[in-house]
């Protein structure tokens, strides 16, 4: 009799579940979304969940956090505009003191007014060695931050650093909610309070984050009342849930774009990024140490074919380290003639003569290389293979090898690696560390041990010069010098692909950095979006 009762219980539970599912299931999927037409909640599907929502610990240091505001932010063309600052920061002619006056009448979501003390607290906490944050690296130039009065903040720098003002996009946190706590595990990290256009409502880790419009936002209340951010790692599942009508906007794999292109009510947005993939050509390697080899390898690769075949069209060729979509780009880096014939001629002139098995040699050394890529990154693997086949065609034998980053780190000073770098913001970011001789071999910085005193000088000029025209000239010259020395073969920029449901005003494209989760992405300025009637 005992078992009979158990069986009955199991069956009733199963039945109850099915009934509940059917009762609630009548309005799922596409029909339901179509009927509500994104009126109440706008649902974004993103592939990576932030580990915390605290700007101090690396949540959106480049801005676009929705919940927080920096002192400054960027418009669609990446120009700095004042945010919590009343006007753009004032920099002294020596480039060492930056003064910011705060906007009046700004309140945190909990109603407390924003003061200069909150700004000082934000920056001092990032500088505190006890706080486990990579943001500290961005503020390497910062020596002290003071608030001479309630509305003014003064940053003093260790040395002149003009691009420092670009770092002021960091979100400002309220001092009263974090003071005296261990920032690394504070409740604030999962229940943030900012001044941004959207206020935090709830976060079910692993599932979704819910934000609501900040009706008192200093920039005007957002038209979208509620924003739901769903965290869905898997590309296929995210595309499926977009198709099923559960999401209003999401980031998709370029391969999936064709599925969405002709759907009524859906728009596919292809947004360029300043995130490049390239091959480092270390000067310490006996083969890539030779300029002719570096030049030939860089010119032999057909980048248009890479974009077509490897990136499914979602990308753009590149010949240098600065994005052609930014004002800093120097078009002189684009070579006038490319292809295998040019590469072969350069190798002939450089003394690399064809040898046994089609592999060139010079002074008894064969042109053989091992190209490393991070195992598991299929995109970099495909790029490595394409690079190797282009090299083989001109007589340079390249063996590709997928390894973990831990092994790559021990070999990257001697062997070429498929790296990813690039930023759409100030050209100083990354290029200084990648090409200045003082950073040679420090961590991932300057892995090719590139050393050109003139480039060092130009990078220093760019960092110290206030005058925009002179700065621009320095970076233009830097690009030409670096590309002439070819310490890298820059290959392609990646495009990010999104699908958005419905028609919106305010949707603007902004060149994206590498990261494109909840912060950057087609929804970077969600607070300005409104349904197009």
């Amino acid at each position, binding site marked *: 009799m005992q078992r009979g009762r158990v069986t009955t219980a199991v069956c009733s539970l199963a039945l109850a579940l099915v009934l509940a*599912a059917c009762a609630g299931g009548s309005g*799922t999927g596409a029909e339901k979304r179509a009927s509500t037409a994104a009126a109440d909640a706008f649902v974004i599907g993103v592939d990576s969940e932030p580990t915390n929502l605290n700007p101090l610990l690396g949540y959106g240091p480049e801005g676009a956090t929705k919940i927080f505001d920096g002192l400054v932010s960027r418009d669609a063309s990446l120009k700095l505009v004042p945010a919590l600052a009343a006007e753009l920061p004032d920099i002294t002619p020596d480039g060492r003191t930056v003064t910011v006056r705060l906007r009046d009448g700004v309140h945190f979501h909990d109603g407390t007014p924003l003061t200069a003390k909150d700004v000082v607290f934000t920056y001092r906490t990032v500088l505190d060695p006890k706080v486990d*944050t990579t943001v500290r*690296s961005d503020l390497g130039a910062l020596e002290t931050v003071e608030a001479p009065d309630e509305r003014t903040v003064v940053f003093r720098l260790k040395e002149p650093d003009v691009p420092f003002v670009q770092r002021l996009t960091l979100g400002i946190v309220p001092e009263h909610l974090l003071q005296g706590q261990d920032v690394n595990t504070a409740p604030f*990290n999962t229940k943030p309070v900012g001044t941004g256009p959207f206020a935090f409502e709830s976060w079910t880790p692993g599932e979704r984050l819910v934000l609501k419009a900040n009706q008192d936002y200093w920039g005007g209340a957002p038209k979208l009342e509620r924003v739901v951010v769903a965290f869905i790692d898997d590309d296929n599942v995210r595309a499926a849930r977009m198709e099923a009508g559960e999401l209003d906007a999401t980031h998709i794999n370029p391969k999936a774009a064709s599925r969405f292109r002709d759907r009524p009510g859906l728009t596919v947005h292809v947004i360029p990024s300043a995130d490049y993939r390239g091959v480092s050509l270390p000067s310490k390697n006996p083969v890539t140490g030779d300029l002719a080899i570096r030049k030939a390898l860089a010119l032999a690769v057909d980048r248009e074919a890479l974009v077509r075949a490897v990136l499914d069209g979602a990308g753009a060729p590149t010949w240098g380290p600065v994005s052609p979509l930014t004002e800093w780009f120097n078009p002189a880096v684009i070579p006038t003639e490319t292809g295998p014939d040019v590469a072969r001629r350069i190798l002939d002139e450089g003394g690399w003569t064809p040898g046994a098995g089609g592999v060139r040699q010079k002074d008894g050394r064969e042109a053989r290389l091992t190209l490393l890529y991070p195992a598991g990154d299929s995109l970099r693997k495909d790029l490595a293979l394409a690079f190797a086949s282009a090299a083989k065609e001109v007589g340079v034998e390249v063996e590709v090898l997928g390894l*973990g980053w831990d092994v790559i780190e021990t070999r990257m000073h001697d062997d070429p690696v498929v790296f990813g770098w690039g930023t759409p913001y100030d050209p100083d970011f990354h290029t200084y560390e990648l090409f200045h001789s003082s950073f040679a071999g420090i961590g991932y910085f300057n892995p090719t041990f590139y050393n050109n005193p003139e480039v060092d000088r130009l990078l220093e000029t760019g960092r110290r010069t206030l005058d925009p025209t002179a700065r621009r000239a320095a970076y233009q010259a830097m690009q030409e010098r670096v590309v002439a020395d070819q310490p890298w073969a820059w290959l392609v920029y990646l495009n990010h692909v999104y699908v958005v449901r419905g028609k919106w005003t305010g949707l603007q494209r902004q060149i994206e950095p590498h990261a494109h989760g909840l912060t950057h992405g087609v929804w970077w300025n969600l607070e300005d979006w409104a349904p197009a009637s």
Partner: protein
Amino acid sequence: MTPAAPRLGVTPSPTGRSRAGRGRALVQVALRRAVWAVPVFVVVSAGLFTIGAASPFDPVRQYAGARGPSTDPAVLDQIRANWGLDRPLPEQYLTWAGNLVRGDLGPSRSLNRPVSQVITERAGWSALLVGVSLVLMLGLSLTLGTLSAWWRDTWFDRAVVAGSYVLQAAPSFWLGLAAIWVFAILLGWFPAGGLTDLDAVGPTTAAVLRHLLLPAAVLAVSQSSWFTLFVRETVLGTLREDFVTGARARGLAERTVVSRHALRAALLPYLTLAGTQLPELVTGAILVETVFNWPGLGSVSVQAALGLDFPLLAAITLLATVAVVVGNLVADLAYTLADPRVRIDG
């Protein structure tokens, strides 16, 4: 196959015992298991710690993520020192174990919150998913296995056996993706994932049940094929035994013979297996939770492992150890209830 194989602490007895004596014995068994679990956990956590330290992956690099390469190595070294990773390994372990004894699970480094917060946020959802799956799995495999044995060599039996082999071979994440494709996209019957409707204000019971059914069914089905085949084999075996022949000879209906005699005898080893199956169910939950975006401990354990978040990983291991010990205990308990010949050897 003998129905009453002896197990640790449980031996067949010809007499049985009084109800009160049995209860006391159960408590003693439970306590003994709990005491045994302590050294097991010490070995497991120390092993976890050593493997973590020997791993070529750097937890600080994982923590820095995409920002790692562009971060000043001095900043990364400072974080390493903050975490005590520059201290000798035994010292790191003892610090962690000391905090654990005081009830402090420590901070989850990769998630910037206390480990206890991660557990409270997620353990309930995992327990719900695994619990419902377990019930579905038991019901499904018992029903299908028994019917299959009863209707041996009919189309039903062949379909069940063939289907079980196919499902046994299919990985649970594949099954999950296939279920999403069929039931969420083609038919639109169930949501494709998550805990509740994405645009809902809060999780309601009906919405959670609707979101639970597909992942729970996938988890149950992916684990049940082996069980179905097992039940089928045992019932077939017992149907050939003397006592079943005796029951038939007494003129009992075939239905009664199968359900009361054959199935009941076959149930015994099954209960033991169900208890030991719990760890596999938990492992399966990791993949199913990830595919269905179910915000449980399974999906976060992947993150903890990739990020070498030792405090979080160790806490999840601790919970899993508890689940296994409790699972075995419950199986033994059920065993004594199902078979009056078995007594608990306190």
